[in-house]
């Protein structure tokens, strides 16, 4: 059933450990039961700080179930590389989009929403909504 497909989430940070940790945090907070596929693409391929288009493409392929992919990034080259890959047209699976959201809060919102079966538009809306969460 196509309805069972969950939106995939890709987390792109300048740091491998940051991307991995945020993925673990978001998955953990998504609770029990089925969680949406989440893949981290942090740092460069040799483990340094930066952005790797290869790691991003691999992560996107890993979480692609045909229901769309929400990509969340931290800053700078992470944002620009994802935008450039999307502009290329054939580097990422169809339905991959860059979501404008805070990295940690947006990731939690996106994974929770996707795990509940939300479609790509609803996952994006949940992640964007995280910007309105004021702490003070």
């Amino acid at each position, binding site marked *: 059933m196509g309805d069972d497909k969950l939106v995939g989430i890709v987390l792109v940070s300048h740091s491998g450990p940051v991307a991995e940790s945020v993925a673990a945090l978001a998955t953990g907070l998504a609770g029990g039961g089925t969680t949406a596929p989440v893949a981290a693409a942090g740092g460069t391929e040799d483990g340094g700080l930066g952005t790797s288009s290869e790691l991003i493409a691999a992560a996107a392929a890993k979480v692609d179930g045909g229901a769309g992919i929400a990509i969340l990034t931290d800053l*700078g080259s992470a944002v*620009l590389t994802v935008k450039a890959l999307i*502009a290329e047209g054939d580097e990422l699976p169809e339905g991959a989009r860059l979501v404008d959201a805070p990295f940690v809060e947006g990731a939690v919102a996106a994974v929770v929403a996707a795990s509940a079966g939300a479609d790509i538009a609803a996952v994006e809306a949940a992640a964007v909504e995280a910007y309105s969460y004021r702490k003070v």
Partner: protein
Amino acid sequence: MLDAAFFRHWLTSAAALVDREAQRLTELDSPIGDADHGSNLQRGFAAVVATLEKDAPATPGAVLTLAGRQLISTVGGASGPLYGTLLRRTGKALGDAPEVSEQEFADALRAGVDAVSALGGAAHGDKTMLDALVPAVDALSESFDAARAAADEGALATTPLQARKGRASYLGERSIGHQDPGATSSALLFDALAQTAEAGRG
């Protein structure tokens, strides 16, 4: 007219200049960036030269799009998608013609510069590579030499500016007084372009 060989020479010359100036670019990137601009571009352009040798694309458009793609995938920092987009978009604008006129190249490069501006959300005066690229492409209709001079001047003119984009923007007023590394590397591209044109005419 400019053929694929002209563009391969341009990028090979650019790679040599980036290689020679890598340390200086990284030094410029130390006070206001994350001190990797030279090494990142060095890695990217070395990959560009390697892939152009291997694949030997036959048209100007194919040379530039292949080089741009290579920069996006190998640089690892923000300059990768920015320079990659510059070259790819320029290459796409040139289409698959076997030779292009200098004016066609100038027009295509303007499309590339506009794409860089759209990707990074920056404009002339924000203390970025656009401060060299915009005046250079404006001057390119005149001559390659004029474009080189305009790019150099544009890069030098970034020193008193306050950064509004990228990591340097977090420094606020402390970004003032430092020449922008991205504008400096952009000027190297136009230096390489003028050198390539001079060699071709000589």
